[in-house]
C-alpha cells in the first residue's frame, strides 16, 4: 500500500475523500446559514459560526414566499412524474413485450428526440405556451418535464418489464384479463421497484430544472424553488447567510428523497444513463 498505510486505512481515506467531495458545499452553506451578517464580513473569515443563530431561517420564510415556491415545485414535479411514468410504462410495455416491427428504431427516435437541447426547445415552446395562454400555469412546466424524463423512465421500466416471465402474463390472460389488464395487474405490480425508480428520477429531474421554469413562470407566486432561490439576492448585495438558509430549506426535501432511496437511484441512473 502506498505511504505505508494499512489496507483498512486506505479504504477509510478513499471513503472520506468521496464523501467530503460530495458534502463540502452543503456543509459550508449550512455553516453560513447559522452566521450573522456582521460575522460574515469580518476578516479573517470564521469557519464555525461564533454565535449560531436561526434568524436567517426565519427571514428566509418571510423575505420570499419560499413555501409557495416549494408547493409549486411539488405540484409540478409530482404531476409531471405521474404523467411521465404512465406514458413511459405504456411505451416500455409495447417496446419490450409486443412483437413490433422497428422496435430499435422507435427507441432510437425516442432517445434522439429527448436529447434535443432544451434551449432550442425553450424558444419555440415559450411562443407556443404564450399563444395557448398557458404561461404562468403549472401545465406549462408539467408537459415539458414529462417529456424530459420520458427516455430514462422508459429505459428503466423496459429493463424491469423484460425480466417478467411471459407465462405469468399468459396465465393472467387465461384467467380472463385483457392484455392491458395484465399490464396493470401483473406487469406493473411485479416491476414496482422499476416503476418506483423511474418515478424518483423523473421527480428529481423536474425538481431541479431551471431554464424552462425561469422562462415559463414570470409571476413571483408561480416560481418554482430552483428559480425562487435566486430571488433572494439583491440587485447589488448578496445576503449570503439568508441565501444559504433558503438553499438549505430548498435542498432538504431532495436530500431526504435520495437518502431514503439511494440504492434505487444509483441503480436507475446507471441503468438509464440519461439525464437532461
Amino acid at each position: 500500500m502506498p505511504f505505508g498505510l494499512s489496507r483498512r486505512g486506505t479504504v477509510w481515506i478513499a471513503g472520506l475523500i468521496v464523501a467530503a467531495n460530495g458534502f463540502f458545499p452543503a456543509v459550508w452553506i449550512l455553516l453560513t446559514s447559522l452566521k450573522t451578517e456582521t460575522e460574515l464580513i469580518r476578516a479573517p473569515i470564521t469557519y464555525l459560526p461564533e454565535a449560531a443563530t436561526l434568524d436567517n431561517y426565519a427571514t428566509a420564510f418571510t423575505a420570499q414566499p419560499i413555501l409557495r415556491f416549494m408547493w409549486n415545485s411539488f405540484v409540478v414535479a409530482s404531476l409531471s412524474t405521474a404523467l411521465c411514468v404512465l406514458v413511459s410504462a405504456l411505451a416500455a410495455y409495447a417496446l419490450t413485450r409486443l412483437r413490433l416491427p422497428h422496435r430499435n428504431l422507435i427507441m432510437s427516435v425516442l432517445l434522439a428526440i429527448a436529447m434535443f437541447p432544451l434551449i432550442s426547445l425553450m424558444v419555440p415552446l415559450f411562443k407556443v405556451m404564450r399563444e395557448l395562454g398557458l404561461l404562468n400555469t403549472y401545465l406549462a412546466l408539467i408537459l415539458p418535464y414529462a417529456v424530459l424524463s420520458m427516455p430514462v423512465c422508459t429505459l428503466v421500466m423496459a429493463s424491469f418489464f423484460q425480466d417478467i416471465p411471459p407465462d405469468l402474463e399468459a396465465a393472467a390472460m387465461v384467467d380472463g384479463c385483457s392484455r392491458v389488464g395484465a399490464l396493470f395487474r401483473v406487469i406493473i405490480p411485479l416491476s414496482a421497484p422499476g416503476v418506483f425508480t423511474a418515478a424518483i428520477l423523473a421527480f428529481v429531474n423536474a425538481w431541479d430544472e431551471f431554464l424552462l421554469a425561469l422562462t415559463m413562470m414570470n409571476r413571483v407566486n408561480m416560481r418554482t424553488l430552483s428559480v425562487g432561490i435566486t430571488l433572494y439576492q439583491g440587485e447589488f448585495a448578496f445576503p449570503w447567510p439568508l441565501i444559504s438558509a433558503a438553499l438549505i430549506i430548498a435542498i432538504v426535501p431532495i436530500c431526504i428523497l435520495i437518502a431514503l432511496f439511494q440504492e434505487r437511484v444509483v441503480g436507475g441512473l446507471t441503468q438509464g444513463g440519461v439525464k437532461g
Partner: protein
Amino acid sequence: MNTIPAAAADGRRPSGRDLSERALGALLLAPAALLLLVIVVYPIATLFWNSLHGVDNANPAAGEQFVGLKNYLTAFEDSRFWDSSLHTVLYILVTVPGALVVGLGLAMLANMPFRIKWPVRLGLLLPWALPLVFAGLIFRWFFEYNTGVVNDILRRFGVEPLQWLSDPNLAFAAISIAIVWKSSSFMALMLLAGLQTIPKSLYEAAEVDGATKWQQFVEITLPMLSPALFVALIFRTITAIQTFDIPYAMTGGGPGDSTETLAMYIHKTTLDFLDFGYGSALAALMFVLSMAATSGYLKYTRRSSGRSGED
C-alpha cells in the same frame, strides 16, 4: 446500455379476443408520440419557420415579416454570437475531460470494499441531485473576493487573493471548477457501474504475474472501462453544449460578456431583447450542432448494441 431487450412475448398466445399486437402497440405508443409531437416536434418545426422571420426596425408596427435567411446572415456577422459559441466550446474542452478525470478518480475510490456504503453513495448522489443553479450559487459564494473561502485559503498560504469573478480568465476558471464538481459525480456513478463488471480474477492474475498497480490500471481497467467511458463522455458533451445554469448563477455571463455561453445569449436575445426571429435562428444553429453530437452517440450505441455493453 440503451439496447432493446428482445421481445419476451412469443406470439403463441390466443389472439382474437385481444387487438392484434401491432394495433395494440400503436395504441400504447400513442400517448408518448402525442406528447413528443406537441412538446418537441411541433415547437422545433416552428423554430425553423420563426427563424426565417423578423421585425423590421423601420416599420415595427407590421409585426414579424418573412425575411428569408437574413437572421442567419446576421448571426455570421455577430461577434457576440461567435464569442458565446467560442466560450461554449471552451467550456466543453475544459470541463468534459476535467469531469471525466475527476469522475474516474471518484469511481476508483468509491469502488473500494467499504463496510458502510451509504456515506460514499450519498457523496456521489448529492452533487447529482443538487440543482445546477444551486451549485452555481454556492460556488459563487466560495469565490467571493472578500468573504469567500477560496481567497481565505489563499491568504492563509500568504498568496494574494484573486479577483475570481471579475477577471474574465479567472471567472472562466471558477465556472469550470463548479461545472466539473457538479458533473463529475454522475460521471463517477456511470463509471462505477462499469468498474463493477470487471472480473476480480483479471487483477488477481495480473498480481501473480507481478504487474504494478499502474500497469493493472493501464492494461486492465482502462480497456475494460472504455465502453462506459465513451458513453459517459458523449452524455457529458451533449449536456455541456447546453451550459446555462452555472454561469448564469455565478457571473450572469460577466464580466462584460466574457463568460456568456451560446445558451445564455439565446435566452437573452429571446426573453430580454424579445427578438424572436434572431433568437430562433441562433437556437436552430445550436440545434444542428447538438444533433450532430447526438447522432454520433446513437451511431456508436447501435454499433455496440451487439455486445453486452456496460449494463
